[in-house]
């Protein structure tokens, strides 16, 4: 694997430059809807109940029940723990909203490989369209790259043809060089299992259980890894920042970063997702404000 060192100063300066982009009028309207269509509406709590998941699924299909001139897009997917996949499937089947499930011993990955693989296999069997796996950070940080790669290959073979999102947990990796190395490792491992189609493999920043989660510089490093893979092979890997993106404005900054790093091709839910929950309602608030010129109250929206 070719080393791609990253230098923090200019990386952070570049990442900050996207927050200075001014997204107004038509671009804002389109961007907010685009962002909404890219949300993986997520609930990953020990207390998740079937009722909460059902409510989330309804919200995923129709993010808002109020009157709006141009119909709102559905979100991209609902992301839940494996045992709630059947509940989500009851509601989402046939709607186009995907069912994503975290698996492989989420969030820590501190389980024997056989357990992690079975976790993923069962989630797929229960109806998950997409699996969000965690990499083995213990092995990665100890320098056992080949072990990490082999595990990714096995998960990929196990879940195929379900799409695979590989969580690096950037908050545990310590620095940008390591984030880049983990991105390259994950992409190359997944790509080595056979031909992959655009958007079949994603890399994802975080579980949402560790802070910091999706920071813009960390996301930028991952986008650069995706771009280099695309330069080298022509294959488009997807990207999913998760955790910490709560505001519509932050979502628009991310879209600007994707646009200027990878190009407009990536501005589709097939290649870019936001792993988020509270972001959805802020997007809705902003979308509705553009139409009605006033903000709705928080209680006008269902829980996300």
């Amino acid at each position: 694997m070719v080393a791609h060192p990253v230098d923090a100063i200019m990386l952070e300066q570049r990442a900050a430059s996207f927050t200075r982009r001014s997204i107004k009028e038509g671009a804002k309207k389109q961007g907010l809807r685009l962002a909404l269509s890219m949300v993986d509406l997520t609930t990953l709590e020990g207390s998740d109940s079937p009722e909460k998941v059902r409510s989330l699924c309804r919200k995923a299909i129709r993010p808002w029940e109020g009157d709006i001139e141009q119909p709102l897009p559905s979100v991209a997917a609902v992301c839940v723990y494996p045992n709630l996949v059947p509940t989500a499937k009851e509601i989402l089947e046939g709607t186009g909203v995907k069912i994503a499930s975290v698996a492989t011993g989420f969030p820590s990955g501190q389980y024997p490989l056989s357990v992690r693989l079975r976790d993923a296999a069962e989630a797929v069997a229960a109806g998950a369209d997409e699996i969000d796996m965690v990499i083995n950070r213990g092995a990665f940080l100890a320098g056992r790259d080949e072990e990490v790669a082999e595990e990714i290959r096995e998960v990929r073979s196990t879940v195929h043809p379900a799409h695979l999102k590989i969580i690096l947990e950037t908050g545990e990796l310590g620095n940008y060089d390591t984030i880049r190395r983990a991105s390259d490792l994950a992409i190359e491992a997944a790509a080595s299992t056979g031909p992959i189609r655009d958007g079949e493999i994603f890399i994802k920043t975080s579980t949402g259980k560790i802070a910091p989660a999706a920071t813009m510089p960390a996301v930028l490093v991952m986008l650069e890894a995706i771009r280099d893979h695309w330069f080298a092979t022509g294959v488009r890997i997807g990207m999913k920042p998760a955790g910490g993106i709560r505001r519509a404005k932050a979502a628009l900054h991310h879209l600007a970063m994707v646009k200027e790093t990878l190009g407009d091709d990536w501005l589709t839910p097939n290649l870019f997702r936001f792993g988020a929950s509270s972001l959805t309602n802020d997007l809705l608030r902003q979308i509705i404000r553009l139409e009605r010129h006033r903000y709705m109250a928080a209680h006008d929206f269902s829980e996300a």
Partner: protein
Amino acid sequence: MPDRIPDSTTKVPVNIGTTSAWEYAPAPERTPVEIEERYGLYIDGEFRSPRSRRWFETMNPATGKPLARVASANDKDVDDAVSAARKALPSWSRLGGQERAKYLFRIARRIQERARELSVLETMDGGKPIKESRDIDIPLAARHFFYHAGWADKLQWAFAGAVPKPIGVCGQIIPWNFPLLMAAWKIAPALACGNTCVLKPAETTPLTALRLAEIFEEVDLPPGVVNIVTGAGRTGQHLAAHPGFDKLAFTGSTEVGRKIAEAAAVGDRRLTLELGGKSPHIIFADAALDQAIEGIVHGIWFNQGHVCCAGSRLFVEESIQEEVIRRLEHRMRTLRVGDPLDKNTDVGAINNPEQLAKIASYVETGQSEGATLHEVNNQKLPSGGHWFRPCFLTGVQPSHVIARDEIFGPVLAVMTFRTPEEALKRANNTPYGLAAGVWTDKGARIFEMARRLEAGVIWCNTYNQFDAASPFGGIKESGFGREGGRHGLRAYVQL
């Protein structure tokens, strides 16, 4: 298990996103700025009509339309300004550091308070993108006044064991690339050290310096402490030749700098010069490439390349040349060239038609000498005004004109090297010595290169970073004297 929710809610058509391209809508900065029809000279604390009775127009380079008429100072006007500064000198220098600091703090605060207006005016008069004047020029100008306010009552600690005294009356001539910022670089240290000044802004960009004069009035700066005379090269000549100055400070081209040095070489007069450059940017194969690309972009396309320390010669280690060019082209396509007042514009208008013609002729010369032009940014340029697409040239030989002359535009010359020794030799093979950039992941190599590169400022794994605390200035034909930091104060005190 509860019943499934009704079909009416679940089976709505699902619209997964939009597939059309997402373009940024125009985002013009709309802060209104009043521009008067005419601006006089600021002498002895008041705006007055020039004795020359002559006025000239300052244009908006993005539209080619005039913004205002500005007084053209002749020798008598310069004389008045110098007399006013001389008259103000004794009380200003005796006022003491603590009191002078208060004025500098007030000026800094007023610049901050009027930042939006100053940014818009800077962009209208000079053509630079509003995001640069808003995020860099104006905040840094305020920063220079804050920083030097801090020094004003601590000068004896800046020069251990010495008793710093003001030099006297300072003549200061500044260029059009960073109009207000250069005025701040010149005026703030001069005032902090107890000097008085006569400042001449460039003829294409006088408006923000004149706004600064309004700020001096607002903060009750004593009359004559700073005088601002506007005009073209001839006014500059009067300034340089005037016997009443104790010090001359000039920022601009090496060509004009030579004439200033000649004119200044009479009597007991100090001189500092910050002149042109042809700064090398050296990228080793082990560098953090994406950040190096950002450095290249920031180095040459920042402010349309109208930057004396622009990284205009790129030396790439041969093994990564293709990779660098591919990434550079990819990145260049995202540069937004156009209306400088649009908040998303990355590259604005060329400051003046003479400069535009000069840049265009250099690019032609480069191609006729055998270099290949890469002009991948194919955005439509606005009609009216002065525009030049950011570009770079490959296949450049060190002997080519475009590898030797300062172009002062958005044009990068790309060359290669094989060994660090060769990189050094090529980088130093220039009469200039303003700045240099080194990109490598290897710490020891950074120190080795920094030690042996001939330049006043060397940036490692970054480029174009400025701060009031950091001295800036050149060696060789890029001038002498430093601005900023403790080193910059030295140019405005007698020890």
